[in-house]
């Protein structure tokens, strides 16, 4: 067994939270620059330039990219030959989030109870997904995601007969209903198949792929391309003030499902796409 100390995990998560909120990924910057070239509306171009300028200021002045520094989702791939010592995995991650949000001057945006709504003051707890994998590695991926876009996400249980066309309609309708609220240009994550909850998990996980990368299966890649074109033909454009660049990318993930089911989940992500990964 390979031993990893809980304190190492805490320090790693702390740094990931801070880095994600200050440093926009190169894949997002590249996608924004591509969208600038195809945007037809002059104000839409100005918005994209302002978003790129915002990323530069955030990076140089260590200022959060967005005031909604998000809820923290942590995807853990835990090798089966790893032993966590001197602490507990979930507690170590939670402590890392608390330290990262406090030391990084990030906003505390989590309330302890959905009805009583009292702020926990350190953005904990994070939402943790743990996957067991082969080997001696521990991979930590964190996503700091704003709720403006999360709130515009939707889910539906379609029938197998409804199929591909209804999937396309549902995704496009979700984007149009969101309008300017989720901060376009968006990254649209789609989960197809599985169960009620697993489709939502896949939709979120699809957002972890490098922005604009395609699914390896040709028929899913084709679906991604069709969705991308249709979403960008809605006319919403950057911030829904008008134009072409409604989405930077559409990512679709699939998995096996029941003979009676076609679950579809659409997880909407804003342009302030904050994801960072470290493998220990």
């Amino acid at each position, binding site marked *: 067994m390979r031993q990893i100390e809980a304190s190492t995990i805490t320090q790693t998560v702390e740094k990931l939270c801070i880095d994600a909120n200050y440093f926009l990924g190169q894949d997002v910057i590249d996608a924004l620059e591509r969208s600038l070239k195809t945007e037809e509306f002059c104000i839409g171009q100005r918005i994209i330039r*302002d978003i790129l300028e915002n990323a530069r200021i955030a990076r140089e002045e260590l200022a959060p*990219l967005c005031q909604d520094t998000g809820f923290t989702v942590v995807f853990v791939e835990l090798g089966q030959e790893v032993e966590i010592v001197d602490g507990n995995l979930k507690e170590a991650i939670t402590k890392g989030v608390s330290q990262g949000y406090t030391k990084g001057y990030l906003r505390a945006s989590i309330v302890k109870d959905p009805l009583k709504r009292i702020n926990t003051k350190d953005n904990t707890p994070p939402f943790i997904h743990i996957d067991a994998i082969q080997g001696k590695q521990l991979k930590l991926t964190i996503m700091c995601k704003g709720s403006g876009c999360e709130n515009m996400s939707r889910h539906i249980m379609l029938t197998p007969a409804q199929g591909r066309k209804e999937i396309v309609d549902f995704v496009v309708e979700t984007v149009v209903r969101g309008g300017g609220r989720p901060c376009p240009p968006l990254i649209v994550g789609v989960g197809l198949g599985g169960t009620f909850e697993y489709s939502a998990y896949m939709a979120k996980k699809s957002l972890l792929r490098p922005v604009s990368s395609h699914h390896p299966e040709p028929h899913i890649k084709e679906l991604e391309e069709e969705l991308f074109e249709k979403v960008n*033909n809605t*006319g*919403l454009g950057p911030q829904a003030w008008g134009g072409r660049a409604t989405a930077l990318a559409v990512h679709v993930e699939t998995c096996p499902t029941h003979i009676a089911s076609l679950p579809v989940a659409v997880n909407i992500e804003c342009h302030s796409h904050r994801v960072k990964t470290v493998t220990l």
Partner: protein
Amino acid sequence: MMEKNIVSEEIIHIKAPLDEKTVLSLRAGQLVLFDGIFYTARDASHKLLIELIEQGKPLPFDLQGQVIYYVGPTPARPGRVIGSAGPTTSSRMDSFMEPLLQRGLKGTIGKGNRSQEVIDLLKKYKAVHFSNIGGAAALIAKSIKKCEMVAFEDLGTEAIYRMEVKDFFAVVAYDTTGNDLYMEAIKRYGR
């Protein structure tokens, strides 16, 4: 009118609080740069403002002519005026609008579409809603020159702050005649 304003990229300077002449002259699609004073409020502080109104108690600031910016900033680093401070989603404040408009509120700033009810209220009370760029929070903070706590300190980021702004960029989203930037956008660019 909208065609001209949107496509020309022409930007006008306006002052906050807003005077009646300016409010009536603004049209959806017009780009503006604000100088002046904003008050901040979002979900929790709106709820408390409405409770004060319902109890017949005075509000922490006079709403006459004022502009409310829907924002919950990040904590300021030592030596800085404010942290990052971009707009939050406007439509969550839709149900709180009428009592504030009745007390003289003339402008609101946030991101994204609002309900038809709000569009009608803006016509009725002669007020304007602006949108600015969601997710450009570090850039937007540059146009905020002062920021001080006004009320509800225990709400933290959701407290009411008084901000002094200079060259604060926004677009008129809904005007006093019912024009709608978001609807026009889809009509103009949808395929």
